[in-house]
């Protein structure tokens, strides 16, 4: 089955051994190792949070909060999962929390009848296709969206996604199936 053969890893050049060494050095307080960890995972965090709907003007703060959370809780990382999986988990929780806050703010704005703030567009993301994709992704419920993004954009396997989101593999496949169907329907509505 085509789906099951989807085994692209998020960072193919880095082995778990290299991550283990990095984690050990970071735990020992080596700032340079933290810089290496940041350099290695900053692009991943940016891509993942962008796909989970964190707006342009909140992405820097989101990345900062995620790496500070990684820094504060690295001593609890037991090395049972890959470091990337663990970072995805932290980033997903943070992005979903930010989404919840945004929805609350929006509800407050509607109640107060204040003017809608201008939507900022990242100049490096001028692609129409990405903008359209973001609009379609925004219509998916957070759980389905996370699974779809992890599988289709981040290239994680169903097993890895089940580790990130904390649900059985069958649930991952089910959410992915529904998310794909909804995305295709949304795409058809946009392109008659």
């Amino acid at each position, binding site marked *: 089955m085509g789906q099951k053969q989807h085994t692209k890893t998020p960072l193919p050049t880095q082995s778990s051994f290299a991550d283990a060494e990095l984690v050990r050095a970071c735990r020992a307080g080596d*700032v*340079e190792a933290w810089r290496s960890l940041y350099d290695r995972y*900053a692009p991943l965090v940016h891509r993942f949070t*962008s796909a989970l709907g964190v707006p342009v003007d909140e992405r820097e703060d989101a990345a900062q909060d995620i790496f500070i959370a990684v820094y504060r809780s690295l*001593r609890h990382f037991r090395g049972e999962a890959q470091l990337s999986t663990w970072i995805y988990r932290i980033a997903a929780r943070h992005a979903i929390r930010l989404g919840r806050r945004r929805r609350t703010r929006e509800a407050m704005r509607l109640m107060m009848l204040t003017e809608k703030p201008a939507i900022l567009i990242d100049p490096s993301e001028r692609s129409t296709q990405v903008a359209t994709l973001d609009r379609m992704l925004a219509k998916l419920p957070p759980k389905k969206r996370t699974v779809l993004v992890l599988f289709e954009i*981040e290239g994680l396997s169903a097993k890895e996604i089940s580790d990130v989101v904390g649900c059985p593999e069958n649930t991952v496949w089910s959410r992915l199936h529904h998310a794909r169907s909804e995305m*295709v329907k949304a795409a058809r509505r946009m*392109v008659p």
Partner: protein
Amino acid sequence: MKWLEEPKNEAERLLREGLDQAAERTGDEITHRRVWAKVSETLEAPQPRFSGRLVFAGAAVLLVAAGLIAYPHVRRLSQERAVLSGVAPKGTTNPAMPLLPKNVPGPAAGTNADAEQQTALIEAERKPGHVVSTQKGEHARVALGGGAVAELAENSAITWDKQQRPSIEKGSARLSVPHQQPGWRFSVTAGPYVVTVVGTKFDVRVVNHSVGVEVTEGVVEVWRGSHSTRLVAGDSWHGPLYPEEGQSIPASAAPAERPQALPAPAPKTTLPPSRGLPEAQAALQAGDTNKAVEILLRAAQGSGPAAENAAYELARITRYNLNRPRQAVALWDKYRTRFPAGLLRTETDLSIVETLSQLGDVGAALAEADAFLARHPASERRLDVQKLAERLRAAQAASDSR
């Protein structure tokens, strides 16, 4: 096979292309540097918490262990010194330490190139505490792993720390480091400083209570704690071997431009450095721009990444919140003077180019754009700045012809 790799209609094609392009959305280098500058403020080395009894017991155990460990090291050290002198120790052979020719040329016996060719490469044991040293008139080439090589001058010593990083203990060493894999950095320590590189040639000296770094090729960063300074080819840097508590890391100095003086102690700020930026951001969100400026002004007087961020943010707020572009350019320029190799240097240079261009100051913007291209040849924004420079040049030519 990827989902929708063979799209049946326009909608599916659009969806597949969107997913593929979203996978390339990894952010630009400047955003990453700006976030790192903020994250690095939070980093602190974890402090182990031990009770008094544990410390006493640990010290006793360490004392015994040190005696047991030290003996073979002292023995090996004496063997290495004998090897470097061209005399094999009695009854011992060490295949990892090849014997040098008996006529190893010192500085007086031949040129450096001759010495380099004739000195065998030592594959030293890269274990914590292991030392390779040279005496008067001796030189040594030591393999540091990953293709990196250190050429030890006379009266120098190199060892390895707990993280198995090479550490220059005394004297002088020239290091050649091949280009590292993406995400990996090579580092060497000297006193309290960590010098990190991606691929380059540079000298490290530990002489007379001072640490010096001189870069021949590429770019290196010198770190102490969470403070750093960046050096490019031609730059040199000196710092005290035993810096005072709270003293900031000295900035780099191009040899021809500035004397290599030891730094003056950094001015102390009354505001905790790591709290300046969040407080200013909170004030801005509350709409109190004046309070944010006041906080940033105080934070910018300190040292380290917090002061650097505050100095940059101050200019940004002046530009975008107070709408005073000329004053913002002056503040960014001040940032460059204070932090010539700062983490936000690229962002600052770019902000100045953009602001001057928006002001219509074609000559100044063009000079800044050219300086940006010369200083940041590998920047992701190079193409944007190149295009802007072309437009500015065209505008200048049109204005000259009128």
